[in-house]
């Protein structure tokens, strides 16, 4: 796959940043597909209670668990991307002739955010999935 050639380019995984990029894109598309039909469903069913019944089915719970995972990963990794884009996270490249390191990978702040993304997503998804499966299905 050559560079700049559509979605196939996402899967040209060569390092950690590319994996995070791929996951960011996939979770972003999932969030849009999950959230955008929601207001129309509520409009169609006429109430929140009726629309929420779909989320309490086994398939609805599976989709909700992946939604929790997606929103956490997309959100925390999105924060890292924002900090990189705004120049808050930056580093200096290591110009080693044998093993050069790109600027971003030399940044401790970037690694901290990567660890935060992974840990936050794992812990949050575990809690969120538990609540999706066993949490109360009505609000008083």
């Amino acid at each position: 796959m050559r560079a700049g050639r559509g979605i196939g380019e996402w899967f040209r995984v060569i390092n950690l940043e590319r994996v995070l990029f791929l996951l960011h894109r996939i979770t972003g598309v999932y969030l849009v597909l999950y959230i955008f039909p929601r207001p129309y469903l509520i409009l169609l069913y006429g109430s929140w209670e009726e629309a929420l019944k779909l989320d309490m089915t086994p398939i609805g719970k599976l989709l909700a668990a992946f939604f929790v995972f997606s929103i956490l990963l997309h959100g925390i990794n999105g924060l890292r991307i924002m900090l990189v884009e705004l120049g808050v996270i930056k580093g200096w490249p290591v110009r080693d002739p044998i093993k050069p390191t790109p600027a971003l990978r030399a940044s401790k702040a970037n690694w901290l955010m990567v660890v935060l993304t992974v840990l936050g997503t794992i812990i949050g998804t575990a809690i969120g999935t538990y609540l999706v499966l066993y949490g109360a299905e009505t609000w008083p």
Partner: protein
Amino acid sequence: MRASTERTILIIGAFIMVIGMPAVILAAIALGEIPLDKALSTHPLVTIPYAFVKIGWGLIWAVVAVDWVVHGSHGMRRVLGELIKSERGRKILDFLINAIMVITGIVMFYVLVFVT
């Protein structure tokens, strides 16, 4: 739309969500509108945004939700834009994305504020 404009909208949208969503949730818990024990024992989709509609905070959540729609639309424009090669196709995509964004944004606002 210029790529730099799109990027700016995406970043501003993301910033509002990253700050706005936790802020609204924490404020509702801190003010006792949503009890913490209830939030930690309820299906997340029941808590958010249904609980916000129930306690009358639908309008506040609608600001975050509409921003969500704008951010998502621009993200999808980026993703789908990678599949389109012609200028005409890009203009059609722009039009469709803008139409979906406006309609979904209005419907999202309506259901959060006026549907209970």
